[in-house]
């Protein structure tokens, strides 16, 4: 009888201690969660505010590599607006993107070859591409007069257009 009583008392005491330990650990866990939640809420409010501001800013780079067809379409539209007929837009050659130094950006080049176009058409063509909100840039321009035959004001132009792709390097 006495042993059974001692056993029940022991179970009761152990149960009490377990309940205190459990409630204390829960209290500590939720206190940390509340503190972290408050800090996270402050951070989230600040980040949301900055995101709103940044969303209104013009983009400098694309967040993905544009499809070749998209770039080609832009080039064709620019050529059309510059009065360059399709047979003078000789070549469009997308190249592989290359990382710009240690930056999180990659540069995606696309070569364009125009033949028998005037200087005015070249300038309008490039300007049309650069003035749009596509983030395109003329990295290099080579303008050459055909030597074999004198075509007056008509030139051959090799233009390398580029745009930036935001692509941070994956941590190793």
């Amino acid at each position, binding site marked *: 009888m006495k042993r059974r009583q001692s056993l029940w008392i022991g179970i009761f005491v152990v149960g009490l201690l377990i*309940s205190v330990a459990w409630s204390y650990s*829960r209290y500590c866990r939720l206190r940390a969660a509340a503190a972290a939640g408050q800090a996270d809420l402050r951070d*989230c409010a600040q*980040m949301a505010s900055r995101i709103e501001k*940044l969303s209104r800013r013009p983009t400098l780079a694309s967040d993905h590599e544009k499809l070749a067809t998209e770039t080609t379409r832009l080039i064709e539209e620019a050529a059309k607006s510059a009065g360059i007929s399709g047979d003078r837009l000789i070549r469009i050659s997308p190249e592989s993107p290359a990382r710009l130094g240690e*930056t999180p950006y990659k540069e995606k080049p696309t070569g364009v070859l125009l033949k028998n176009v005037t200087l005015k058409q070249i300038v309008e063509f490039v300007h049309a591409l*650069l003035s749009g909100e596509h983030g395109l*840039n003329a990295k290099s321009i080579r303008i050459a007069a055909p030597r074999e035959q004198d075509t007056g004001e008509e030139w051959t132009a090799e233009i390398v257009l580029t745009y930036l792709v*935001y692509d941070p390097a994956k941590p190793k």
Partner: protein
Amino acid sequence: MAIDTAAMRQTLDRLEALGVEVASICPTALLALWQAVHGRQLETDFVMLADGSRIETFRLSDSQVAAWHSTSDSPQEIARAVQADLLIRPVESASPRLILLGKLPKDVEFRLTQRIPLQIGRDEEASVVPAAAQAAMECLRKGRRAGWVDLRTDALAPQNVWKPLRGLVRAAVLLSISLTIVLTAAFCWKAWRYGKIADVCRDGQEAEFRKVYPNSRVPTNVRSRLKSELSRLAGLSGAGIDVPAQPNALENLRRLTAELPRAMRLRVLEMRMGTGGLLLEGQVRSHGDAEVIFQSLKRAGFGVEAPKTEHLVNGGVSFTIAGKLAEAAREGTSP
């Protein structure tokens, strides 16, 4: 002093079984004597406690009990005990002094003094035996000392040393249990409060997310998602990132052509403008004209080198000017 512990043990066990706590075991005579002599300087050799038919005679030495003789009320027996004690511990005076507590029959007292020349005195201040023992017990109950001897030791010692403190232990245990329950309740309540705060913060985070992305599903980890979105947007807009300058070849081409002398007869065969630098090939009338173009470009800030010229068979001079885009020319860059 010795007692029969086996018999006393049985008595103790019975008392304890009935829930009686025995704090100490003291002979009644010793308790009464303690009450009579404690804290007093009695000028006596013997103290006699007369309580009914039993006579307790104590030999004192410096107010301490030196011997205890328990006898019947027979004068001969009492006298033998006193005489035996005097043989062991003789007194200086011819007639030993004795203080009587309680009531000794007159004839016993007379016959005793006939046998031994005792100076018998009576302590008027001392209580009678039962009352003195009762007073001594009260002292014991209050935790004070009430005698020279406590037989509640060794074989008669309490089997459970905590038993006398049972009340205190019980109170402490109850207090501990109450405290534990209160603590558990307090932790649970505080945890519930913190849980509510965490919920409110989570709702706040979701509201912040919906504010900027109203049509998107709220992710599990809002902070992480907003952080990655912020990082992405900062990257796309170039905010806070050192974006390398992108040379605008069209602008540099415009600058180059603007610097070519208007009045000079000049035929351009090739113009190249890019990150590698610039190249201008053409034909002019003379070597000097090529030099003029070179100087003009140099003044404009292009880092050009001196022109290479070559006289043509059919007249005129071909020239090549190459160089780098100097700082002034780099103004035509886009971030």
